[in-house]
């Protein structure tokens, strides 16, 4: 494996870690349940995606990478499903969202 690929994979891993951190900060800073879902969405897509990409670069062309691709597909489908299920459940439990009424 070339040094360039190695460096690239670490860039991906660190970038992913940064986005995961941003997701966590977002959960702390945003005002209510529904807005927090958007922060989680950041770590779900960009964070996890970049970490997986970095690991795939580390794995090279092997069975490991194949499994990582399968994990990636799995996450793309289940992540939004879980978020949607949470939002729907919160809506059914009549949790009041914070809404900005100003006209844009």
């Amino acid at each position, binding site marked *: 494996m070339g040094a360039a690929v190695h460096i690239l994979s670490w860039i991906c891993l660190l970038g992913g870690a940064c986005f995961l951190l941003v997701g966590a900060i977002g959960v702390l800073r945003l005002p209510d349940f529904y807005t927090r879902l958007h922060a989680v969405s950041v770590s779900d897509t960009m964070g996890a995606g970049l970490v997986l990409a970095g690991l795939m670069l580390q794995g090279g062309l092997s069975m490991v990478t194949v499994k990582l691709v399968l994990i990636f597909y799995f996450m793309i489908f289940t992540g939004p499903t879980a978020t949607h*299920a949470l939002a729907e459940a919160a809506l059914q439990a009549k949790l009041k969202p914070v809404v900005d009424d100003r006209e844009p």
Partner: protein
Amino acid sequence: MEEHLINNVLLGLLMMTGFAIVRMRSLLAVTMLTSIYSLLSASLFVVLDAVDVALTEAAIGAGISTILMLATVALTTDEEKAPRHKPLLPLFVVVATGAALIYGTLDMPHYGDPMAPIHLHVAPTYLHVTPEEIGVPNVVTSVLASFRGYDTLGEVTVIFTAGAGVLALLGYRTRRRNSQNPEIRKMVVLRVITKLFFPLILLFALYVQFHGDYGPGGGFQAGVIFATGFILYALAYGLGNVQRIIPYRTLRIMMVAGVLIYIGVGIESMLLGGKFLEYRILADDPVTGQHLGIMLIELGVGITVAAVILIIYYGFVSRQHQEPPEDT
């Protein structure tokens, strides 16, 4: 070095989760935290080279336990009452015990020490003998299924007994209910995604079942994942529909059949002139015999575990529906 760092960070997170679990009052939140705790410890097991344990913990602790715990909370109450008096005595007991235990660790071999007594006696033998006699790369599987096959038989029996116990306690009353309630009909995303993933989860379970020789996995984990597929289906489509795929009767038969397969392999090896569960008799070549024996008993374990977990789930959920609807 990175390994140490990850290890320490995970341990720290585990500790924080543990404290949060003790302090929280809402049992639903505690259940979810327990799931997180379990996932964290599974990651820790991977760092500590125990991949089989990690897979089991992830499937059991983070998966099935959470579902069963949520079912329990749904049957009872989700708010813990405040304790009546100050927990001074328990606190004292805990601190004293902890201090004594920490004093005890001072004599223990250090973490990662290759010369610790634990590594010097039995384990090297297993590592040496496994490639020659068993021919299975995963030493944990060979220890579980072959060297310590009796233990695993005992374990399957325990699980079988647990299933029988739940059958006796909770029972199961078939009730022809119209399981497709309107709330479920509305959750279109859940239903479609479940439909897409149901076959894939089952296939993955079978993959784990049959690749236990080469990597982490085996009958137990496979059985749990298999059951999870059906539980997911039941959550999205209702219990009635999942019973069309696997009826209750079939489950009871499966629960017994798994144990019988296991014992049958033992008796077969006795009939062929060996001892109970002596797999190398099973084929002309001892290594092939071992392989065959391990595969068969793992299959038995998988069938029993899947059946027992589904029986427990059916028991819980069918009871849930019998409660008169009070809070609607």
